């Protein structure tokens, strides 16, 4: 199989997952100017949730739905308990708090589930390979196809929601100018809750997909993935829906290509590489590749 094509597909896979998470970051940031560091950990919550439900005998689709519900519940509790009291507190406070929530979640799950690495075993169907094309054929697992289909579908769905539904429009209004939006009768709390629901659900799906693809999971996995997805959102232009998605995909592709193509030993710099990209992009485009200049009037 063509090495480049294989790497590309891997990159797109990872990138799609990043995109899902990045969109969640972006939605919340757009309205609240809050970087929810705990967002990545919701991924982890979803994974454990699905794992438990499957162990309890639930079939896969129900387990996934169940884990989404669990994750959304966590997300809403966090919003209500930790973020809402700080609604007008300013950048630093929310930043620190979201970090604290992240630490809390990680340690909670560490305590309950121990740091042990576990395996998320999906039914064999997912690892079956499909061969595309004739000569120079590309092999792709069903898992990859599922990832692409699901993320594509979700991104389209969320995009539709944001553009067409009342809540979606209200969300965008709040992102632009929450005071004016409130004056127009928008219920900010409802919008925030909605944003967290959407974001958490996306993170949950991302978590299940990630663990399905990469199998191994533990309580600390979420933070790092979340940080990378955040970097992706920033690179694409946080606050911009399309930017977040694009940034996610781009970062995933770059990360995998970097790992595959660079000489021996440099591969371990993979994570560091992500941040080098971030630093470089921000140097030249302080608002991300697609971001507009931030001017919040409130």
């Amino acid at each position, binding site marked *: 199989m063509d090495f480049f094509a294989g790497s590309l597909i891997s990159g797109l896979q990872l990138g799609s997952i990043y995109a899902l998470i990045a969109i969640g970051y972006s939605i919340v940031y757009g309205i609240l100017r809050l970087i929810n560091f705990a967002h990545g950990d919701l991924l982890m919550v979803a994974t454990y949730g699905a794992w438990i439900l499957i162990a309890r005998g639930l079939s896969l689709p129900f387990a996934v739905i169940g884990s989404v519900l669990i994750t959304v519940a966590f997300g809403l509790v966090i919003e209500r308990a930790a973020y809402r009291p700080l609604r007008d507190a300013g950048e630093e406070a929310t*930043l620190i708090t979201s970090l*604290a929530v992240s*630490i*809390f979640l990680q340690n909670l799950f560490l305590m309950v589930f121990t740091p042990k690495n576990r395996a998320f075993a999906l039914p064999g169907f997912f690892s079956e390979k499909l061969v595309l094309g004739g000569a120079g054929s590309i092999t792709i697992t069903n898992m990859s196809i599922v990832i692409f289909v699901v993320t594509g579908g979700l991104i389209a769905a969320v995009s539709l929601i944001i553009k067409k539904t009342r809540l979606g429009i209200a969300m965008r209004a709040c992102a632009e100018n929450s005071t004016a939006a409130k004056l127009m009768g928008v219920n900010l709390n409802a919008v925030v809750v909605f944003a967290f629901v959407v974001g958490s659900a996306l993170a949950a799906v991302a978590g299940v997909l990630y663990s399905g693809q990469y199998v191994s999971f533990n309580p600390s996995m979420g933070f790092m993935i979340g940080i990378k997805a955040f970097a992706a959102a920033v690179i694409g232009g946080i606050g911009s829906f399309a930017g977040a998605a694009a940034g996610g995909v781009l970062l995933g592709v770059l990360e995998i290509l970097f790992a595959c193509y660079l000489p021996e030993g440099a591969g*371990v710099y993979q994570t*560091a590489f992500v*941040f*080098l990209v971030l630093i470089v992009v*921000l140097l030249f485009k*302080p608002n991300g590749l697609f971001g507009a200049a931030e001017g919040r009037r409130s």
Partner: protein
Amino acid sequence: MAKALFANPLFKFLAVVAAPVAALLYIYIGVAEYYQIVVVMFMINVILTASLNITNGFAGIFSMGQAGFMGIGAYAGSLLTMTAELKFSRIPGIPAWLAEAHLPFIPALVAAGLAGAAVAVVFGFPVLRAKGHYLAVMTLGMIIIIKAVLDNNAHLTNGAKGISGMERFSTLPMVFAVMIVSLFVLHRMTKSAFGRSMAAIRSDADAAASLGINATKYRMTAFVVSAFFGAVGGSLWAHLQQTIAPSLFYFKESFSILEMSVLGGMGTLSGAFPGAAIVTFLPQFLANAENGFRVFGFTVPALNGLSNIVMSVIFILVIIRWRGGVMRSSEYIVDAMFGRDTWAGLLRKETYVDFWNILREGLFKNNNPHRLEEKSKQEEKDHEKENR
């Protein structure tokens, strides 16, 4: 009465200088080594926290990367104090120039600080162009990059396995001295033109620019100074624990320092004391609980990570409820330690007289009108002295 007491120079001296020094002396001479180590850890944490407060509190640069500078200082300091034979044996493949490099502890400490400062200059250029959240994430990226470099240059650092065997130079008196000197310099910095400029930039960067203040220069200065003392703290840490590894200077440590900073009060140097105290000593108490205990007939199993959970909950509560931390914006402790008011006050007779009077008030609670008159005269005098 409490106000008058806190303002009295003799009280300041006793509470902030004499009593702690006496306690430290006792601990140094009379107490088991394990507890001494915890106290030394506390003092190192004070240095680390104070250094973080310079960027996060004073300069308005929210950095989460202090552990990175700590790591640089730990490695630089250790590599300079270890003997050549030790280095050859512990770090296979180490180049000769690095093995031969050797300095006594204190110059090595300064060199470690300078190494941290140098790294800060390199990262400062890209990182400080960002603001707020973006900057914070860039500092996270900084830690990741530093760890990756430390992990992957085994011929210099022995990679992820780390290095051990450095001498325990971080004795109680030594660390105490370094802490005092560090706080002194930092205190001076906050009270001088540098401190004022940073307050101005934090308040209104454009207005500050219109007064000739180049924000970039000052932010870089804050970042570099913070890195210097962070690295010093790291080197002290290395020579206490006597073993270092790149994984020991990562997210967890950075959050720890951040916790200390926020809990104690980010905007002041004095906040380093309560903050470091809570984070250093509280887990010691919780450590017992972590191993499981019996209550009301239930056996609570070993709770791995309980102290972290408790800390993060406390953390969140503090942010929501007491944003300014323990000290809020009061620089009481450090001002009392180094302020002219305290030391000059010790030379004045009135200080002792006032102190005695205040004590008498408190101890004998006499509401005799004659006493009341004296008391209000006393309060007037103290009030006057405060305003001077």
